[in-house]
């Protein structure tokens, strides 16, 4: 069975969404199928339609644009999809011709690691240079950091072993502070083509803070991977 990346095209976003879908499809070994938003349909109906499309076995991912006039629709698709969705943050962002380097911010949780495993495998299999970013939360700092000349190596080795299992081909960057501030900094510094984020798909107030801030600041496509 062939796999497809579903490009969800709304008026004025065809080029960017198709471009992002094509770049992602190349990584995933998939083809692109464009699906157009019906401007006359109710938002709930459109959300249900696209989520159902993404539930089909051949759909491996989707692409959407936040430059769309209907953000409500896009958030609805993102929250309902059980497949990864690449988001073009706005019309200023240009889709990459190909994904050569990806930034993967990663929490120290097995849930995040499990959710990312398939995507990391696909990225690595496509020869993408993967930069894993972990942002240390000062309030959950390690108990001990004996010697900066040695501890960092031991800590990074353990982090990669626990949360990037079987992926010796990634690079790791560690920052301290707020993740939503570090992600755009590192994305720019590393000149990445794609940011990959695991998220809970919860949009109630106070949630998805990092996703929202990242979409508004990185200027490159963001691949949102459902945590479950």
């Amino acid at each position: 069975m062939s796999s497809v990346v579903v490009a969800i095209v709304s008026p004025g976003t065809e080029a960017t969404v198709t471009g992002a879908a094509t770049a992602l499809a190349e990584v995933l070994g998939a083809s692109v199928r464009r699906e157009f938003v019906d401007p006359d349909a109710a938002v709930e109906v459109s959300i249900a339609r696209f989520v159902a499309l993404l539930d089909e076995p051949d759909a491996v991912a989707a692409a959407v644009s936040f430059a769309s006039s209907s953000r409500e629709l896009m958030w609805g698709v993102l929250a309902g999809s059980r497949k990864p969705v690449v988001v073009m943050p706005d019309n200023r962002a240009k889709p990459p011709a190909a994904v050569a380097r990806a930034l993967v911010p990663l929490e120290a949780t097995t849930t995040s690691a499990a959710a990312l495993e398939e995507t990391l495998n696909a990225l690595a299999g496509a020869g993408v240079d993967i930069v894993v970013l972990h942002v240390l939360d000062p309030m959950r700092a390690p108990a001990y950091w004996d010697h900066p000349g040695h501890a960092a190596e031991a800590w990074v080795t353990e982090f990669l072993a626990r949360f990037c299992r079987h992926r010796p081909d990634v690079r790791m960057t560690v920052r301290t502070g707020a993740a939503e501030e570090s992600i755009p900094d590192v994305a720019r510094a590393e000149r990445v083509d794609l940011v990959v984020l695991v998220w809970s798909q919860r949009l109630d107030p106070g949630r998805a803070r990092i996703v929202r801030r990242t979409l508004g600041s990185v200027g490159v496509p963001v691949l949102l991977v459902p945590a479950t």
Partner: protein
Amino acid sequence: MLDPDWSVIEVSSDPLRRRITEALFTLGAGGFGTRGSVEEPVPDSVELVVCAGVYAGPGPTDGLLPCPTWTALDIDPAGDDEAPDDHRVLDLRTGVLERTTTRADGAVLRTLRFASAARPGLVCLRASGPADVLRAGGGPLRAPKGAVSTSGTTRGRQWVRVVAPSGTGVVALGTEQVQLTGTTREVSRIAAYAPDRPRTPGLAGARTVFDDADEVGIDGLLEEHRAVWERRWATVDVAIPGDPDAQLAARFALFQLWTNVARHDEMAAGARGVSGSGYSGHVFWDADVFVLPAMTTIDPRAAAAMIRYRCRRLDAARRWARAAGRSGARFPWESAASGADVTPREGALGGQLVPILTGVEEEHITADVAWALAHHHAWSHGGAPMPRNHRAVLSETARYWASRVTSDGDGAAHIAGVIGPDEYHEDVDDNAFTNGMARWNLRAAARHAAMSADPAEITHWREVADRIVDGYDPVSGVYEQFRGYFALERLLVAEVATPPVAIDLVLGRERVRASQLIKQPDVLMLHHLVPDDVRPGSLRPNVDFYGPRTAHGSSLSPAVTASLLARAGRADDALALFRVAARLDLDDRSGMTAAGLHLANIGGLWQCLVGGFLGATVRDGVLVLDPHLPAAWPELELRLRCLGRRIRVRVDRGDVVVDSDRPLRAGLAGGPVLDVHAPTELASGRVVAIRRSSS
């Protein structure tokens, strides 16, 4: 039959946990260590055999040389949907690691392994299981991945040699017997390890270690091995009635000290011992101040081997002093094979790249090395004259300090631009610990100097020592950690986070540097190491002042702080921190135990029992006890080595009871000295009961 008082049990087959148990289940003897990796290939496993003191190269990141491995078996992998029931037990009493794996189809695989304590360097493995699961083949030894190695056979035994670019290496020599009985296959494997140096070829050394092991067989070798462990535990042990968790953790500490450090020729005790590749196998003050005092009471010959490592690198220390424009000898903050400084010059604090100044400024290690050999001498040899090579270290380190101090217009001596044990504050002047240890070093050298030493120089050492400032405030009874410390922002750890915490990661280096927050005991290390050289009665005010400012962001901190708290009479607070230290590796509280056991913490844990809760010190050949037990411990009994004796001390609410296998002078702090008379066997020793007047 499992004895929970002696067993560290792992039932998880979680591959992530396995990385940690690989370190926890390290087996070793004679300087060789084998991590407790499972026998089949597992992703992310760090299967490793290393030899203390044998490094892959001379650089700061070269680390210990990976040696040939002996534990891998050709095991049919279980399917993804049939996670086996995996049960592993490290029997501390016998030094044996056993594993029983039951698969979904009922097939049972058993392994047993040990690193012979009777024949250091010899290791044994026995495995049995269904022939279609435990497959034949592979041979007893495998070269580590990426190693420069050669291999062959000699007299029916396989040998593998790994060599570092320097030419040093390790040779392993092994045999394997495979027996098929019905559908059950049994694999028996024996291997011998020896260092390979130009003048001491490893193959000959391995043959010597191997000796007649084939003829003795694994059962016989196991019997010998168990007998050694039985003797060890009869000599050194801990009993904490009513607190089995603390007792097991303390026994685990003893087990891993024997495993990682018990070598009797020369011992380069790295910060992670031989249990992992962390900290590049480098030797820090962890060895001299945290591990060696423990080994002095556990295996004095091993402590002597650690001192030998330092004494044999005195010339390198002299060169390091000369390079800095000083006299005498300066020991490097981190050292490896040659004794030259191998401290990295940059590192990372979380994600922040930071320069590493410890190699340049953490100079107190020079006095720590001198302290270690004097401490060992006092505990093991009492008032006997110190050996000449030990006196040489004391004298050369004293010369270093005499050339290191500067004098002000008032004649006071200062030491500027250092880092104390509290590494949050760098490039400070007159660090109380560094100054205090330098002063102690000068006086100790003067005290132990030979009759032939230059009297003028001895007088000079004493005169310099008397002039060194120490930051003591007679009003508060508190030592200022360094000049200007009291003017820093008054910030307590509890206002920021719950210790232990790497608080420099929480607040950032600059904020912490501008505050009174500290990483680990600094001033209080003076009270820990040289209690007779600090102002009488200053322990409690300094514990009260610095305790709330200590983040315990170093794994060295909790155990030694617990010891100080006990001595200060706060035994319940001490027990709380003792428990933190006790679980540090067992629960992977650092998140980095997979890189190796925190040997300084382990040594500190035993020191806390001996020097803290028992309050044991040796003064002029007399064992002095000042016990402080927490409310949760109605009784504590320790067996240990002291002054060439095997002693047992039992403390309960009313009495302190001392046994000794040979005559011993002992007493309570401030009380009369009693003679423990001359029984020849500990078990039949005459008991001296010392009743405490305060109880």
